[in-house]
C-alpha cells in the first residue's frame, strides 16, 4: 500500500494566474484586466492574464502551453466555483505533466461578481485580494500523490431488506463478490410486514420474493442469514467485518467497500399518545394495513367483533413534532422531520379500503398533504373522488380523541379549510399514520464512528455532490438507513450505492485525495495530544522512529483511516501535524493577504 508522499520541489516556483471572464458573468462586474495587471506585479507571479472562458479547450490549452513551454509550475485560476471545474483544471495539469495538486481555484463568480453587482469597484478589489490569497496558498503547496490502496474486490452489505438485496445485485452483476449480511433468518426486512405497495399495486411479498430469488441464485453473492455484526475494522479497500454466524461462531470476512442498508423502524406511539393502547380500536397505519388485508368480511370491515363503519386517519403521528406541543418518546428527541412517505401510504391504504368496503366513512385529518411523486398526486385525487372527508388542522394543533360509552370515538379537530371550524367526527376506529424512525444500529454507529444527522439517520456527505457517501471512505448508505423513502426511492438509492461501490472498485487500486494529516517527525514532540483529539480509531497512533540518528516517539498517521478533518492540527503547538494541502501556514498566509489588501 502506498500512502501519502509530499514532494518538496527544489526548483523555483513559477506561478501563473488566469482570470476568467466567464462570458460576461465575471467581467461585466469585475475589471478583469485590472485584476490581471495587479496580480502580474505580485511576488512570484510570472504570468497573469485574463481570458473569455478558461474552461474552454482554448483556455485549458493556454494553461497547458504555459506549463509546457514557459516552465509554469504553480497555477491559480480565478473563475466560477471549484465545484464546477476543479476536476477540469486538474485534468489539464495532468495532461501537461504537472502534479494536479499544484493548482488553486479561486471563486470570483458565485462569491464575488454575482453577489456584488452594485459595487463593481468593491468586487474588483475583493477579487484581487482573494486571488492574492490563492497565490499565497499555492506558494506553500507541495506536490502531493494521490493515495493508492490495493482494494479487496468484495463488497460487504449490511442488511438484507430490499435496499441490501438491490445493492447486492447491482454489485454482483458487475462482477464483484458480495457478502450480504442479514441478522434475521429471512430476507426482505420491513417489507415482509407490508401488504400492497404503491404506485404499482404489487404485493410487497412479490417484490421480496423476486429480489430474494435473484440474490439466492446469483453465484457472486454469499448470503449470510442470522449473521450479527460484532465489529468492523480497517479502511477503504481493506475492511474486516467480524460477525457471529448461524452456528454462533465468530467469523471474519474482508471487503473493499461496505454498504449499509440497515433500514428503518416504524414509529411506535407511547401509551396515551393520541389515546394509543387505551383501546384496541386505536391502531397504527402498519397495523391497519394488516387488519384490512386479513379481513374477509364481504360488506364492511369487521375487527375484534365490531363492524367498522367510520374511521379517522390522523397524519403526522411521530413526525413533524413540535417543542411545547408534543412529548418525545422516553430517552429520545422530538422527531421534527417530515417522514415524507406516510401521507401517500395513508391515502393509498384509504383507496384500497374504499375498493374493498366502499361504504366506509373516512375522515382524514392532516396538516399538509405531501403526496409528492409522479403518480402519487393521482392517489390523492382518487381519494377525494371517493368521498374521503379531508380535515386540515393547523400544524401546531393536535386532534383530540374521546372515547364514548358505546365504544366509539369522538375525534375533534380545527379545520383550516372551513375557516377554522371545529369538526367533530364520530368514528369506530382511529388509525394513527405513523412515520419512519431510524433503526437501532447504535452498536454499529459507535463501532464504525458513523455520522448521523440530527434526525438520527445516517448522514451522507452532500445531497448533490456526494450522495449516499459517508464521510468514512469506502462506506455507502442504501435506502431508509439514510432517511424515510418509499419502495421505489429505496431501490433507486440502493442502486446508486451499488454503482458507487462498483466505481470505487473498478480498478485494483483505490485512488484517494491526499488531504489527510501528515506529521513532520522533526517537529513532533511525541506529546500525544493529537491522538486524544482524533475521533477515528487507529487513524493516529504513537510509534518509535529513528529521527536524526535518535529514536524518538512520534505520531503516525494511517492514511486510509484519517478523514482529514484537522481536529489534531489545532492542538499541535509545534505545528508538527498538518492536513496536506490545507495547512495552517497556508491559511495564515491567505488571511494575511486578505487583511493587507
Amino acid at each position, binding site marked *: 500500500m502506498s500512502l501519502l508522499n509530499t514532494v518538496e520541489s527544489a526548483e523555483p516556483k513559477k506561478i501563473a494566474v488566469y482570470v476568467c471572464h466567464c462570458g460576461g458573468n465575471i467581467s461585466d462586474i469585475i475589471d478583469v484586466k485590472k485584476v490581471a495587471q495587479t496580480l502580474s506585479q505580485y511576488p512570484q507571479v510570472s504570468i497573469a492574464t485574463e481570458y473569455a472562458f478558461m474552461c474552454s479547450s482554448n483556455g485549458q490549452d493556454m494553461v497547458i502551453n504555459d506549463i509546457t513551454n514557459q516552465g509554469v509550475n504553480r497555477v491559480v485560476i480565478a473563475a466560477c466555483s471549484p465545484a464546477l471545474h476543479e476536476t477540469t483544471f486538474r485534468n489539464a495539469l495532468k495532461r501537461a505533466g504537472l502534479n494536479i495538486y499544484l493548482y488553486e481555484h479561486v471563486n470570483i463568480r458565485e*462569491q464575488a461578481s454575482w453577489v456584488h453587482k452594485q459595487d463593481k469597484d468593491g468586487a474588483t478589489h475583493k477579487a484581487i485580494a482573494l486571488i492574492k490569497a490563492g497565490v499565497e496558498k499555492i506558494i506553500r503547496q507541495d506536490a502531493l500523490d494521490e493515495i493508492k490502496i490495493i482494494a479487496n474486490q468484495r463488497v460487504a452489505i449490511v442488511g438484507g431488506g430490499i435496499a441490501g438485496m438491490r445493492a447486492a445485485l447491482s454489485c454482483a452483476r458487475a462482477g464483484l463478490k458480495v457478502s450480504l449480511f442479514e441478522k434475521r433468518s429471512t430476507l426482505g426486512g420491513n417489507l415482509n410486514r407490508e401488504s400492497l405497495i404503491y404506485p404499482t399495486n404489487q404485493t410487497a411479498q412479490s417484490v421480496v420474493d423476486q429480489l430474494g430469488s435473484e440474490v439466492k441464485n446469483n453465484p457472486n453473492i454469499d448470503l449470510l442469514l442470522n449473521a450479527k455484526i460484532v465489529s468492523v475494522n480497517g479502511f477503504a479497500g481493506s475492511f474486516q467485518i467480524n460477525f457471529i454466524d448461524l452456528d454462533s461462531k465468530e467469523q471474519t470476512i474482508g471487503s473493499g467497500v461496505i454498504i449499509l442498508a440497515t433500514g428503518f423502524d416504524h414509529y411506535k406511539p407511547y401509551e396515551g399518545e393520541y389515546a394509543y393502547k387505551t383501546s384496541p380500536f386505536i391502531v397504527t397505519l402498519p397495523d391497519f394495513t394488516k387488519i384490512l388485508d386479513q379481513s374477509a368480511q364481504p360488506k364492511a370491515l369487521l375487527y375484534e367483533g365490531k363492524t367498522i363503519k367510520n374511521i379517522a386517519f390522523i397524519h403526522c403521528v411521530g413526525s413533524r413534532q413540535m417543542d411545547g406541543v408534543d412529548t418525545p418518546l422516553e430517552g429520545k428527541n422530538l422527531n421534527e422531520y417530515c417522514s415524507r412517505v406516510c401521507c401517500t401510504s395513508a391515502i393509498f391504504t384509504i383507496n384500497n379500503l374504499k375498493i374493498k368496503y366502499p361504504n366506509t366513512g373516512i375522515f382524514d385529518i392532516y396538516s399538509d398533504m405531501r403526496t409528492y411523486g409522479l403518480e402519487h398526486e393521482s392517489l390523492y385525487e382518487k381519494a377525494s373522488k371517493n368521498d374521503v372527508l379531508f380535515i386540515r388542522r393547523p400544524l401546531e394543533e393536535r386532534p383530540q380523541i374521546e372515547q364514548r360509552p358505546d365504544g366509539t370515538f369522538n375525534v375533534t379537530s380545527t379545520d383550516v379549510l372551513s375557516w377554522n371550524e371545529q369538526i367533530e367526527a364520530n368514528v369506530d376506529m382511529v388509525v394513527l399514520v405513523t412515520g419512519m424512525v431510524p433503526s437501532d444500529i447504535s452498536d454499529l454507529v459507535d463501532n464504525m464512528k458513523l455520522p448521523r*444527522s440530527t434526525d438520527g439517520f445516517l*448522514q451522507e456527505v452532500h445531497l448533490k455532490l456526494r450522495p449516499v457517501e459517508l464521510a468514512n471512505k469506502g462506506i455507502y448508505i442504501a435506502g431508509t438507513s439514510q432517511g424515510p423513502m418509499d419502495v421505489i426511492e429505496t431501490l433507486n438509492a440502493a442502486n446508486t450505492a451499488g454503482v458507487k461501490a462498483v466505481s470505487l472498485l473498478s480498478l485494483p487500486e483505490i485512488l484517494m485525495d491526499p488531504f489527510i494529516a501528515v506529521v513532520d517527525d522533526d517537529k513532533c514532540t511525541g506529546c500525544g495530544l493529537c491522538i486524544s483529539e482524533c*475521533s477515528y480509531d487507529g487513524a493516529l497512533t504513537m510509534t518509535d522512529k529513528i529521527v536524526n540518528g535518535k529514536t524518538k516517539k512520534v505520531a503516525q498517521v494511517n492514511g486510509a483511516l484519517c478523514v482529514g478533518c*484537522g481536529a489534531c492540527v*489545532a492542538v499541535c503547538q509545534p505545528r508538527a501535524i498538518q492536513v496536506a494541502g490545507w495547512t495552517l501556514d497556508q491559511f495564515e498566509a491567505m488571511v494575511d493577504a486578505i487583511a493587507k489588501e
Partner: protein
Amino acid sequence: MTKDSRPKILVITTSHSSYPGANAVGQARLAYDSNTYIIRVPDPVMFPEEFYIKALTNGIAGIIIMSSGSDCPYEGAYPRLAARIQSTYTKMKALNMNINRLKITTICTVCTESFLKEIANMEKVVAA
C-alpha cells in the same frame, strides 16, 4: 489599487456545507457587502485559538465561522470546534477584545437567508 479602508469580514466555510451555501447565495443573485472574504476549509476544527486572535489582531475586523453544526460529517468535530471557540472567547476577553467579533454559526448548503443575516449582523458589529 488603494487599500480597502472598510472593516473586513472573514467568513470561514466548510467544503461540504456552507461553501456550497455561499455559492447558493450567488446563484440566487442575492447581495451582500464586498468587504466579506470567504475561505473554505475541510472543517474549522483545525484552527487553534491563536489563529482567530492573530487574524483579528492583524487586520480582520470580524470572523464568522459557518460550520456544519450537528450535521458535520466528521465524527466529534463540531463539539470540539464549539469548545475551542469558547476557549478563544476566554482568551479574547483576557486581551480586552470584543468577543462579538468572532461568531460561530451553522449554515447548510441552502441556508441563503441565514447566510445573509449572519453577514448583516457582523457588519453591525464591525461598524460599531
